[in-house]
C-alpha cells in the first residue's frame, strides 16, 4: 500500500476501502522495516501523524472539505519550519530548534488535511548533493544502499522511493529536488521562482531557493503543486499570478511540441549511459509527435562558478543569525561575546557550511564585491538571456538531470569541486528562476537515470504535459527498488 501514489490512495480513502489511520500505520510499519538502512528521516512525528490521520478520517466520513491530499501521509524536508516540531536543517546548530511558527506551505498542507509523518534528512542547510553533509547521518539510496540518494533533498527522495512516505516536499537551490529525484528514480519539480511561498523555508540562498514536490509519478506532482502554489503576502518574492489546476495539464499528447535538447549538457563530463538514455527519451518524444532539435546555451559553462559566488554570498548573510544568542546551539566554551560567537559557530556548523560562509563572505568583501558578486550577477543575466532566446524556438528544453547515476557514499566527499559539478545541469535553471522537472527515463547498473525538462517562467503546465505524456508511454516510474523486499529482516548496515 505504501508504494501506491496519492491519487490511487485518494480513491481508496474516499471509497472507504482504507482509512487514513490504517494507511498512516502502514507507512510507519514500512519505516520501521527499512529506516535503519535508508535513514531518510531526522525526526518522526508518529503521534501527531496519527492525530492528523484521525482528523482526516473524520473529514472523509463527513465528506466535507476533501482535497486530493486529505489523509495522505507526506514527508517534509527538515528545512521547513513546523511549529513546536524540531526543525534542524540537519545542522548541529539547530539540533534543538523548535520553531514558534509554521511555514506557509505547512499551513496549506494542514488545511488540505495532509498527514505529516516527519522531517527528512538533508545536507546541512541544503548545501550539498548527497546528504553526506548532514550534521547527523547520511541517507542511503534505496536502489543501492551503498550509494547516495543525492541531495540536498536526499531524505525526501529516498523516503518516496522506499515507500517511507507517499509523497514529499523538498527544496531546490541548485538542483536539490531534481538531482535526488533523478538518483532515487522519482519525480521532482522545482517550480518557477515565486510560484511557491518561501515563508518558513530556512533560507540558504534567497534568490534561488524554491520549495517543490517529490512524488512517485507526475500526477502526484500536479496534485501537490495545486496545494502549495500561490502568492503569499508574507513572501514579497512570491508572485501574484493565478494558480491553474495543474491536473488539467495531465494530457497524453506532445504533438507539435517543440523540444530543444541542450547540446551543452550532452558532451564532456556526462556519462555515456546517461547520454544514451536521454537520446532514447528524445527519440521517444519525437515518435509521440514532438519536434526535437538540438540547441546550445553557450553561457552554461559559466553557471557553476556563477552559482558558487551568488549562493554562498547569500548564504553567508542568511546564516549570520546562528550565533547562540536567541535559539539553537550555544557553546559552553566562552569568556566573552566574541568567543561565544566563535565557539558556537565553530561547533555548530559542519565543514561544507563553513566553506560556503567563507566563500560568500569573501565574495561580498570590500574590494572584491565588483570582481566577484557583481560580475556573477551579470553572468546570471546572460544565462537568463540564453534561456530567453532558446524559448523563442522551443516550448521546453530537455537534458539529463545529473551527469551520472547515484555515486558511492564517500566517493566525492574529499573533492568538493567534483561534488559541485554533479549539479551542472540543474544550476542554470535556478539562476534563471525557471521551472524544471526530473522524471525517471532509464537505468544504469540498476540505478535510475533522470530526464530534466525545463520550461519558461510559470510554464509548469507545459512541463507537466510533456512529463505526463512521457510517463504514460514508458514504464520506468513503475519500477521499485528491490531492496524493500530482498533485504527485509537482514542485518542493518
Amino acid at each position: 500500500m505504501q508504494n501506491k501514489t496519492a491519487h490511487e490512495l485518494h480513491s481508496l480513502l474516499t471509497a472507504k476501502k482504507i482509512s487514513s489511520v490504517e494507511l498512516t500505520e502502514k507507512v510507519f510499519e514500512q519505516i520501521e522495516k527499512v529506516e535503519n538502512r535508508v535513514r531518510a528521516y531526522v525526526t518522526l512525528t508518529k503521534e501527531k501523524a496519527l492525530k492528523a490521520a484521525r482528523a482526516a478520517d473524520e473529514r472523509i466520513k463527513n465528506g466535507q472539505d476533501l482535497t486530493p491530499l486529505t489523509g495522505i501521509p507526506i514527508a517534509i524536508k527538515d528545512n521547513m519550519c513546523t511549529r513546536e516540531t524540531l526543525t534542524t536543517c540537519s545542522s548541529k546548530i539547530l539540533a534543538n530548534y523548535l520553531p514558534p511558527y509554521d511555514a506557509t506551505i505547512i499551513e496549506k498542507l494542514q488545511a488540505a488535511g495532509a498527514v505529516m509523518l516527519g522531517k527528512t534528512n538533508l545536507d546541512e542547510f541544503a548545501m550539498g548533493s548527497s546528504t553526506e553533509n548532514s550534521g547527523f547521518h547520511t541517507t542511503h539510496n534505496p536502489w543501492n544502499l551503498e550509494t547516495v540518494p543525492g541531495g540536498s533533498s536526499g531524505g525526501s527522495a529516498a523516503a518516496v522511493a522506499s515507500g517511507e512516505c507517499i509523497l514529499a516536499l523538498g527544496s531546490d537551490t541548485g538542483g536539490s529536488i531534481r538531482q535526488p529525484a533523478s538518483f532515487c528514480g522519482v519525480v521532482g519539480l522545482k517550480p518557477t521562482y515565486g510560484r511557491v511561498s518561501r515563508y518558513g523555508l530556512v533560507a540558504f540562498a534567497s534568490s534561488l531557493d524554491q520549495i517543490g514536490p517529490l512524488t512517485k509519478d507526475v500526477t502526484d506532482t500536479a496534485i501537490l503543486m495545486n496545494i502549495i502554489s500561490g502568492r503569499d503576502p508574507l513572501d514579497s518574492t512570491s508572485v501574484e499570478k493565478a494558480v491553474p489546476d495543474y491536473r488539467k495539464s495531465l494530457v497524453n499528447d506532445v504533438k507539435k511540441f517543440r523540444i530543444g535538447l541542450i547540446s551543452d549538457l550532452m558532451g564532456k563530463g556526462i556519462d555515456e549511459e546517461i547520454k544514451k538514455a536521454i537520446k532514447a527519451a528524445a527519440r521517444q518524444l519525437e515518435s509521440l509527435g514532438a519536434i526535437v532539435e538540438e540547441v546550445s546555451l553557450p553561457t552554461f559553462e559559466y553557471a557553476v562558478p556563477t552559482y558558487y559566488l551568488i549562493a554562498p554570498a547569500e548564504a553567508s548573510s542568511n546564516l549570520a543569525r546562528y550565533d547562540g544568542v536567541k535559539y539553537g546551539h550555544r557553546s559552553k566554551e566562552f569568556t566573552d561575546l566574541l568567543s561565544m560567537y566563535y565557539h558556537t559557530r565553530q561547533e555548530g556548523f559542519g565543514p561544507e557550511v563553513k566553506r560556503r560562509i567563507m566563500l560568500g563572505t569573501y565574495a561580498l568583501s570590500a574590494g572584491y564585491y565588483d570582481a566577484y558578486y557583481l560580475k556573477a550577477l551579470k553572468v546570471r543575466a546572460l544565462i537568463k538571456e540564453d534561456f530567453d532566446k532558446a524559448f523563442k524556438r522551443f516550448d521546453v528544453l530537455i537534458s539529463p538531470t545529473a551527469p551520472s547515476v547515484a555515486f558511492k557514499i564517500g566517493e566525492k566527499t574529499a573533492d568538493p569541486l567534483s561534488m559541485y559539478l554533479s549539479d551542472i545541469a540543474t544550476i542554470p535553471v535556478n539562476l534563471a528562476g525557471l521551472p524544471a522537472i526530473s522524471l525517471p527515463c532509464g537505468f544504469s547498473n540498476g540505478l535510475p537515470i533522470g530526464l530534466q525538462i525545463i520550461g519558461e517562467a510559470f510554464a509548469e503546465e507545459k512541463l507537466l504535459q510533456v512529463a505526463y505524456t512521457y510517463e504514460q508511454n514508458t514504464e520506468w516510474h513503475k519500477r521499485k527498488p528491490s531492496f524493500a523486499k530482498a533485504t527485509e529482516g537482514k542485518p542493518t548496515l
Partner: protein
Amino acid sequence: MNYETIIGLEIHAQLLTESKMFCSCSTKFGARPNTNICPICTGQPGVLPVINKKAVELAIKSALALNCRIEKSSVFARKHYFYPDLPKNLQISQYELPLATKGYLDIVVDGQKKRIGITRVHLEEDAGKLVHKGAARIMGAGESLVDYNRTGIPLMEIVSEPDLRSPAEAKVFMEALQHLLQFIGVCDAKMEEGSLRCDANISIRPEGAQKFGVKTEIKNMNSFRAVLRALEAEEKRHNEAKKSGEEIIQETRFFDDTTDTTIGMRSKEFAHDYRYFPEPDLPPVEPDNRWIEEIRNTIGELPEKKQERFKADYQLNPADAEFLTSSPALAVFFESCVKLYAQPKIVANWIMGDLTAYLNANNLSLEKIDLTPAGLIDLFKEIDKGTISGKIAKTILMEMLKSGKTVHDIIKEQGLTQISDEGELVKIVEDVIQNNPKQVAEFRAGKDSVIMFLVGQVMKASKGRAKPDAVQKLLRSRLQ
C-alpha cells in the same frame, strides 16, 4: 592661519507608524520587554520581511518637505555586523540606491538664511536594546539582556551635506529639522527619548582651502545641548592638534556628556566591512508619480512659508510669527480666531500669553482642551462690549479652560459684569476716600502718583468689576 570647521550630520528619525518596518508588531513605546515581538523581528530561521507601506509614505513625505528628489527605484540592502541587539546579525537598510536624494533645508543663522544640502534620505530598521549587568558595555559585563521591542521599528536616515560651519549651526540645523519633522507629523523627534538621533562628521581646514581635512565621527549625542557641546569639544581638539602638530586620525569618537569630551573608540571594535548587497527578499521601492503627488498634498504649508505669510498677512513680528507657526494645530487655531475677529495682534497676545501659559503649566496641548476659537472670540467680544475688564477676562479664561464653560455662563454665575451703575461706583469711591485719609492728604498736597494706589483700592473693593480709567476719572473729580 585661520581654520574653518566643516560639519555634516547623519540623523536617524523613528517614523510614527503603527507597526514595524518589516512585520506587523506594534511600535508602541514603553511596553514590557520582548512583548512587541514576533518570529520576523526576532530573526527566526525561515522568516521574510515585508515592507511597511506607511513607513515608505512617511519617508517620502519627509523627503518632499526636504526638497529631495524621490528616486524612481530604490533598493533595500543588507548591512552586516554581529551584535546581539541585531537578531539577524544584519540590518536591512538602503545603500547604493536610497529612497530620495539631493534636497535641502533652509535654516536661519544670525538672522541670515542659509541653505544646507541634504545628500540622501533612506529607510532602515532599528536595532534592539541591550541592558548590561556589571559594566557599561557588553565587554566586561557579567550578563547582558536584550529587549527586541525596538527591533524593526522604522527608521529614516537623513544625511546632510558637509555644509555646516560651526557647532552652533549644527544645533540650529537639528532644531529646524526637528521642527519640520514634528510639523509634518512623521516623527516625535525627541532627542532625549531617542526618537531623533544624530551622529556628526567634523573636520577643519585652512580658510579658503578646497580640500577637506581628516574627519572624525562623533556618536552618542542625545540632546541639542549635547550636539553643541560635543562638536565644540571636538572642534577645539582638532584646532589644538593643528597647533601642536599632532595628527588627527579618522575614527569614531564617543561623546561623554558628564565631562563634555569626546573619547576615541578602539578602532578595531568599529572597523567594519559591512558587506552590503541588495536584499534578495524584497522588491525595489518604485513609487509612482500619482502616489508621490498624493503624499505631497498631505504636507500642506511648511513652517517657513507659513511664517512668511503670517508676517505679511497679519503684520506680526518675526518672533510672534515663528511662535504661532511652531505647530500645525497652533497655526490653525490662530487663523481660525483671526477669521472670526480681525485683530491679529490681540489674538496673538492672548494665545501666546495666557493660553500658552496655561497649557505649559498643565502639560497640555491645544488638541486636548475644549476651548474653541469661537469660545475665545466670545471672550474678546465681552471685553469690547465693556461687560468685563481685561483683567477679569484673564480670570474668566482660566475658568473656561479648567471647566470648559462658556464666557457667558461664567459671567452670569459669578456676577462678574463690569459696574455700569454710576451710583454703585460713586459709593465705593467715597468709601475709599473716607478710609484712606493719609493718601488723600498726600494727593491733595501734590503727590499725584498716589492716585494709582487709590484706584487700586477701588478695584479691590469692586472685585475688579470697575473700569480703571473711569475710577481714576471719578476719584480725581471727587478729590479736587
